[in-house]
């Protein structure tokens, strides 16, 4: 009797283990491409929602995994669990520097932070300029591009992290702390940012910081080993990402609809968010200002190196990596032709 019961339990466990709710419908005979994405509005979500990669690469399984931060994407790259990943320039600069030295390359610029990331001061806190922040409490998600931008903005105004009280908060928690009056200012991003703006005002946005030489970007990275083994897949991936950028410019309504379906906001809200970000055209992505051309890595390497230097100054990494390291880490193969056609 007991043995029978044991068998029943084992059988039930095995049956349950087999019942997965994963609907990715993997076919075991095809190789799998693993893509890490984040929920910030970008071409990545359009590609995913419209299943463009699945159509363009019928001989592969495509596995999309959602991540909440660039730090998590870096961790997944270190663990060799990702082939492509979307992450901010600050995590990329950290990943390419020692001690991480993650073997990946920057293959695409998803978007450039504009008015969609900003430093906002709460009404009634008596803060009108960045210099007024001295001694105040500022919330921002640590290790994010917003954190980097906040430190850069303070730096511009002769303040350092020690002159203010920085509080590590995720965007939703910033909103809670803001409503309760626990923080006086916050550097955050959409959609939380729009809610903060209802009872606060912008001190500086990332668009301004980009003009001042401290741009923050969202980048698409590809694992070195994968890029060496499957350059054709990387080409297809870049073409689909370029197609998504074109859609954002040519048909923002369709773009907003696809993104809205992925992040659970209304298409109108997403359309508003798309207007606040900076989305390059494929030609711009392959221009010397950003990725550059084959053999001539663009200015993005300089941006990343300066971000790395900044992280080193902030003691977040032991020392900055050289410009050469970043130039080597730009995937320029076949550019500009590979994405502009």
């Amino acid at each position, binding site marked *: 009797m007991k043995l029978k019961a044991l068998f029943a339990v084992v059988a039930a466990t095995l049956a349950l283990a087999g019942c997965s709710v994963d609907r990715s419908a993997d076919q075991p005979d095809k190789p799998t491409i693993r893509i890490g994405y984040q929920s910030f509005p970008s071409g990545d979500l359009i590609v995913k929602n419209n299943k463009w990669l699945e159509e363009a690469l019928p001989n592969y399984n495509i596995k999309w995994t959602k991540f909440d*931060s660039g*730090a998590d994407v*870096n*961790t997944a790259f*270190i*663990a060799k669990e990702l082939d492509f990943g979307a992450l901010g320039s600050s995590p990329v600069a*950290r*990943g390419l520097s020692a*001690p*991480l030295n993650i073997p990946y390359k920057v293959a695409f610029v998803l978007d450039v932070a504009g008015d969609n990331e900003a430093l906002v001061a709460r009404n009634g806190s008596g803060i009108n300029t960045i210099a007024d922040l001295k001694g105040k409490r500022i*919330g921002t998600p*640590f*290790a994010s591009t917003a954190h980097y931008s906040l430190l850069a903005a303070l730096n511009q105004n002769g303040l350092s992290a*020690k002159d203010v009280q920085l*509080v*590590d*908060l*995720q965007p*939703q*928690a910033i909103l*809670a*702390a803001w409503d*309760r009056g*626990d*923080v006086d200012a916050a550097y955050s991003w959409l959609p939380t940012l729009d809610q903060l703006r209802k009872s606060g005002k912008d001190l500086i946005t990332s668009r301004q910081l980009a003009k001042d030489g401290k741009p923050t970007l969202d980048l698409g990275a590809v694992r070195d080993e994968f890029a060496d083994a499957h350059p054709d897949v990387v080409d297809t991936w870049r073409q689909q990402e370029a197609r998504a950028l074109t859609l954002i410019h040519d048909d923002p309504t369709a773009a907003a609809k696809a993104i809205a379906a992925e992040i659970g906001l209304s298409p109108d809200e997403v359309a508003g968010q798309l207007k606040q970000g900076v989305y390059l055209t494929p030609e711009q992505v392959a221009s010397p200002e950003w990725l550059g051309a084959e053999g001539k890595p663009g200015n993005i390497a300089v941006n990343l190196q300066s971000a790395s230097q900044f992280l080193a100054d902030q*003691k*977040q*990494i032991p020392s900055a990596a050289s410009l050469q390291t970043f130039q080597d880490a730009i995937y320029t193969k076949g550019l500009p032709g590979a994405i502009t056609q």
Partner: protein
Amino acid sequence: MCPVAHLPEITADGGVLSLALSADLHRTVSSRYQYAVSVFVDIAPDESLADSPAAVVPSGRWRGRLTRAALPLLSVVVFFVVWQLIAASGIWNQTFVPNPGAVWHAFLDVSTTHDGVRGYAGYLLWEHLYMTLRRVFAGVVIGVVLGVLLGLVMGSVSWVRSVLEPWLTFLRALPPLAYFFLLVIWLGIDEAPKITLLALAALPPAAVATTAAVVAAPVGLQEAARALGASRRQVIRDVVVPSALPETFTGVRLAVGMAYSSVVAAELFNGLPGIGGLVKDASNYNNTPVVLVGIFAIGISGLVIDGLLRAVERRAVPWRGKI
């Protein structure tokens, strides 16, 4: 459950112990019905003392002590050797398995001021640990006091138990991470939500253990005490509580463990300074050596706290296992 290190003391002189035991009971149990005490002593079996092999060979006692001290040390040494070998083999990248030297270096960095940087994120390791221990202490005191009181009431009044038990089980089943965000919205980002979370984590084990212990208080003793003229209050104070105390202490130790294991969750928002905040922040930067320093700090301080609790338990309830 009787702590091993306690045995030699008992075996040294069984007679003295039984005297001490009854003296203790005299202190706890009102002298008005000391016959009930004799019930305690009479049913306290002496077998556990007689059976102890250490009592037979005095030199075996020392050997036993040596083994007990050497074995954990040996396991620690083996652990570090294996770790060093794995790190040196280079199978995994330094971010996965940093070598012990790198972790030691991170420990020194976090504990001192170097190159003008004070510890980690502006605080030294002991300051992180102090802030965390302070939060855990406050949370555990609130959680355990409420939990034990709740347990006493639930154990003695059956309708209260029926009403509260589902709620307690509900709370016990919740991982703190699930509701921490609500605490942040309601209580802000400072100390209040952290201490509340730790108290909520500590309350159920204390309450459940106390309830079970009170319910399990020997009916024979209770009836004997009542037959001897004790009032309901006296029965609870002098029979139920002393017999429930050992198990309650186990509940307290579990409660401290639960609270301690919720530390990283509690310090997820605005956790710096704090050892959980340090671990979370260092993971954001994929800074494995500092993460390991934090993990060791949490683990070792957890061991020390549990050791202290066991020592207190030995002093406070020496009659554990003897009723």
